[in-house]
């Protein structure tokens, strides 16, 4: 009985313990599975789940035909893990120091721009202090020390193998890339450049900046459960957000034409030694910029070549007084609206004309000439008189219809819209000055666009420098923005103004240097005084702009020389030969057949020369006749006066009068 009782007690105890034990387990299980489920599940997930940020590559820039202009050069960054180096050296300070010194020396020997002492200092910095939100300072292990950045890929692979051989601890290589400009200075001011800030490209200027959004890659991520070796467990859950590379940009630029323009611009700089120079080649039918160059420029691969002067994009950012290259716009509008005809005679006042209390001069003394000659001889007075004839309102309409005061629509930022005062702010002098390119500031792009309008028959077209953007199969072509209606009401206006502009490159014109064998070249010179500190200076913008072949233009080309210091300062002499050189090579590149045979072209030119000679002879004879007539009148008047005073004969005194008259005329 006693035995049974003690057994019963023991069994009861065991039973209670078991029940208690199971109860506790159940309680703990409840706590783990129900109460703290979320917290613990998150902890566990954090332990075995890895999240990796994936980065795409920035879009590249190509020319129209797919030649690479800006690319991504694969490189590697070398980073060290100071805390790990210390731990892997069993926390032995002496051993750690030795290894860090070896690593630093190794990379100084093998990489450029690496300082061993600086690397050693970084690698020895095993921890750093941080301050949390509550202001408490915390000591944290340092796992990241930059050893070298932008190491070329092939070189980095060699270094990685050597590092393995030498068994350096805590050194890793991470893939990266940097922007590379394989054509060096070519198109540098248009392409722009980027800086790098914390692995992110920061666009600075040019296409890199204006199309940054399209070129920027979209980062993705990958979340997966990992095994002990760090690899993903294939049969476990994983999710990923795709990475998208940036769009590749295809410009309207043709690399061969760009090379031609740049080469000729360099030659011009050698010839006339200007402060700056630029040229732009545009297709007038669709506004495509085929080439655009400027000097000085810089090499984006070598930032030491950058100066504020060389890195500015003058083509879109500079607003300058254009000078005489504005004249065709005014004359064409006057022809179109019937204010004048090519034969209308305008008195150019022999080079000096007073209007609104101010004198206006011509470079050459021009008398009474038809409108055609105003463009050919680039008469300021003739153009101003036509402009005054049109009136301020019509002049304003004319210039605005050619796009002055508006942006050209090109995909470049920033772009100036120039300085063109609204009509209500014009003064009495404006009507005689805006028409000859004074008091109005325009950008080279605006000028090129306006000449495109003359060349294409008056259709306003936006300039395009980006043809299309592509990402795999996703191709987006930038539309051509062109007005359906011409600004010319008269269909013959284009021919009339083109014929006048052809005269500029023919005998008697202001730029015979721009004539091209076998072609009619329509152009206009411009020599504009530079405004420095609010006043006109003795420095000039010498420009020549034109289109070839004149009747069916394949391109519009503007060449400008900012302050030529050697040789002539005139647009015809400074920029004309460069225009010719570029245009000739461009026509050859485009395989444009000459309009005239060599013989026909020479015959045409000699006929023009002969006509000019005959006209000059006629004019000289006319001037001589007038001079003689005036002398005769003068003599007669003097004789009359002398007869009144002395009653003596006047025959002995004509020589003195004649001398005086000729002095005045000279």
């Amino acid at each position: 009985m006693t035995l049974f009782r003690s057994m019963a007690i023991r069994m009861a105890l065991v039973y209670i313990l078991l029940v208690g034990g199971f109860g506790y387990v159940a309680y703990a299980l409840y706590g783990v599975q129900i109460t703290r489920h979320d917290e613990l599940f998150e902890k566990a997930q954090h332990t075995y789940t890895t999240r990796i940020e994936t980065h795409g590559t920035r879009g590249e820039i190509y020319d129209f035909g797919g030649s690479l202009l800006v690319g991504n050069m694969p490189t590697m960054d070398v980073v060290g893990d100071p805390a790990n180096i210390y731990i892997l050296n069993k926390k032995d300070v002496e051993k750690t120091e030795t290894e860090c010194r070896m690593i630093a020396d190794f990379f100084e020997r093998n990489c450029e721009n690496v300082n061993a002492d600086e690397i050693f200092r970084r690698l020895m910095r095993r921890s750093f202090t941080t301050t949390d939100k509550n202001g408490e300072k915390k000591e944290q292990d340092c796992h990241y020390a930059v050893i070298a950045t932008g190491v070329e890929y092939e070189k980095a692979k060699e270094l990685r193998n050597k590092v393995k051989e030498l068994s350096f601890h805590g050194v890793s290589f991470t893939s990266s890339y940097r922007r590379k400009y394989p054509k060096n200075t070519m198109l540098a001011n248009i392409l722009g450049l980027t800086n790098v800030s914390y692995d992110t490209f920061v666009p600075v200027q040019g296409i890199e900046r204006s199309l940054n959004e399209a070129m920027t890659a979209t980062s993705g991520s990958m979340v997966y459960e990992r095994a002990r070796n760090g690899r993903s467990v294939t049969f476990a859950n994983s999710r990923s957000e795709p990475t998208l590379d940036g769009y590749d940009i295809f410009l309207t630029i043709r690399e061969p034409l760009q090379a031609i323009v740049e080469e000729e611009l360099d030659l011009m700089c050698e010839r006339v030694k200007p402060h700056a120079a630029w040229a732009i080649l545009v297709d007038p039918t669709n506004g495509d910029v085929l080439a655009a160059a400027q000097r000085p420029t810089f090499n984006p691969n070598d930032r030491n070549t950058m100066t504020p002067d060389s890195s500015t994009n003058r083509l879109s950012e500079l607003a300058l007084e254009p000078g005489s290259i504005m004249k065709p716009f005014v004359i064409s509008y006057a022809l179109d609206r019937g204010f004048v005809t090519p034969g209308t005679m305008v008195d150019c006042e022999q080079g000096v004309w007073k209007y609104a209390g101010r004198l206006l001069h011509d470079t050459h003394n021009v008398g009474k000439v038809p409108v055609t000659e105003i463009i050919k001889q680039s008469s300021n007075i003739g153009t101003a008189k036509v402009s005054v004839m049109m009136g301020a309102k019509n002049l304003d309409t004319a210039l605005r219809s050619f796009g002055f005061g508006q942006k050209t629509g090109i995909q470049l930022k920033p772009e100036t819209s120039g300085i063109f005062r609204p009509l209500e702010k014009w003064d009495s002098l404006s009507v005689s000055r805006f028409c000859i390119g004074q008091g109005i500031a325009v950008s080279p792009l605006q000028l090129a666009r306006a000449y495109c309008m003359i060349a294409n028959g008056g259709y306003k077209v936006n300039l395009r420098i980006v043809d299309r953007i592509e990402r795999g199969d996703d191709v987006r072509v930038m539309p051509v923005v062109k007005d359906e209606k011409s600004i010319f009401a008269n269909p013959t206006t284009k021919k009339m103004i083109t014929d006048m502009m052809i005269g500029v490159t023919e005998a008697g014109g202001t730029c015979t240097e721009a004539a091209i064998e076998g072609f009619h070249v329509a152009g206009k010179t411009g020599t504009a005084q530079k405004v420095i500190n609010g006043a006109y200076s003795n420095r000039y913008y010498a420009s020549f702009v034109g289109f070839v072949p004149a009747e069916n233009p394949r391109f519009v080309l503007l060449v400008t020389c900012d302050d030529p210091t050697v040789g002539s300062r005139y647009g015809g002499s400074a920029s004309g030969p460069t225009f010719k050189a570029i245009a000739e090579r461009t026509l050859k590149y485009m395989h444009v057949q000459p309009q005239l045979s060599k013989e026909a072209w020479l015959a045409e030119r000699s006929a023009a020369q002969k006509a000019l000679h005959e006209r000059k002879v006629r004019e000289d004879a006319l001037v001589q006749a007038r001079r003689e007539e005036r002398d005769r009148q003068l003599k007669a008047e003097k004789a009359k006066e002398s007869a009144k005073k002395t009653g003596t004969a006047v025959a002995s005194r004509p020589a003195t009068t004649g001398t005086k008259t000729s002095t005045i005329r000279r």
Partner: protein
Amino acid sequence: MNHFTKKTSPSKDGTAAGPQETPWVAGLIFKMALIMMIIFSAFFARVHLNDKTEQLAREKTRIIEQIREKRTEIQTLNIQLANLRSWDNVNAKIRQYNLALRAVNPSQVRHMKRFEGEVAAPSSLYGGDTRIADSAANSAQNTAGGIQ
């Protein structure tokens, strides 16, 4: 011999129980063995499959890494190619080797007019851009004196 297999003495009514009980037991054992075999087979198949998947995943990672390396090499080569094709470089070579090169005269160029029904050149010839092919065709049509 156990309870199920041992031979039992004939019953009093003369019927023999042993030979009828044996197939039932054997069947049970066979069925259990079969089930166990299926379970183990499924288990090992799953393990084998996982192992295979892991192997393939490793292989995939290796190939992806190889592709990445090749792409990187291609990118590097593309940059080098663009550099070599730059006019600066070409011009320097022309001068270095004193090559008597000159631009072609337009009169030396003849455009072939496309015959009716002729298949257009693939756009891949023009960097995938059909407009260049079209413009070449238009240019050919517009050119006077071209070979017809």
